[in-house]
């Protein structure tokens, strides 16, 4: 616990230097599905990979776990929301794919293969059409 105190001060400096750290909507949001199907297919490695690599590449992001998103056939699945955009769900994500997603989609907005399309409509959308 004594060591924890030492690194605390280093990390505090890092955190205060970061812009936008108080506004989650302006950060990239990454949700990794972690239900039984996800965990059994290796979602934990994918989540660890995102946390480590985003820090290394200095990309501000919030990485969390969610429950089952319903795409058990394509696990591990990851939902990425770039600031100001609709969420995109990728399936069959391994660490290599996660690497591609970081380099191409998160950094450049370039869509990567393996997107699982949205197959539902929300009530608001329906109302607008009428």
């Amino acid at each position, binding site marked *: *616990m004594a060591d924890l105190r030492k690194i605390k001060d280093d990390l505090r400096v890092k*955190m205060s230097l970061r812009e936008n750290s108080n506004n989650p909507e302006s950060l990239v949001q990454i949700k990794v599905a972690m*239900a039984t199907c996800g965990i059994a297919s290796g979602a934990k490695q994918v989540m660890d990979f995102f946390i*480590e690599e985003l820090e290394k590449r200095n990309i501000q992001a919030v990485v969390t776990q969610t429950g089952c*998103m319903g795409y058990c056939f394509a696990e591990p699945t990851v939902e990425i929301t770039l600031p100001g955009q609709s969420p995109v769900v990728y399936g069959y994500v391994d660490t290599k794919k996660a690497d591609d997603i970081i380099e191409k989609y998160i950094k450049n907005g370039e869509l990567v293969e393996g997107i699982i399309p949205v197959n539902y409509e929300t009530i608001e959308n329906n109302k607008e059409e009428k």
Partner: protein
Amino acid sequence: MKDLSLHILDIAQNSIAAGSGLIKVTITEYRGSDLYRIEIGDNGKGMTPDFAATVTDPYVTSRTTRKVGLGLSLFKQNAERTGGTLKILSESGRGTIVSADFGLSSIDRPPLGDIAGTMVLLAAANLKTRFIYRHITEKGEYIFDTKKVNEMLEELPISEPGVIRFLKEMIRENLQEINIAG
């Protein structure tokens, strides 16, 4: 599931879905009676006796996206494969304890795996929940309590990558000191 820490990650998700503010994961190794016990307890909404009695059936689930829930079934199967058991104690409005006994030396017992990573991941992704991980062996006991960690960190969240890395190392070193089984 390749190892026990993934089962723990999975069952703890149930506790989180039940709205728990406190989740206790306790692993006890009794070399004398060849027992490896994993208990995951929470103070979530609990289950009615009827539901709890059938919950290890894969077709019984509280999930709404699918009609199948495999987490408890797989955990139970793995425990029984080593000559062990899975017990569930639950009370509506109070919480649930899932207790799995494995044969410590059984060749069918999956290894513990990356428990440090699992606990830190759970804590980092659920900052408002308190996790207490206790590991007991004949050599001693190690306790990882996110309340104490947060007090030490003050305003720094556990989800900060530098903290995540540090906590994983800290847990691993402490577990080595009490000679945990694989």
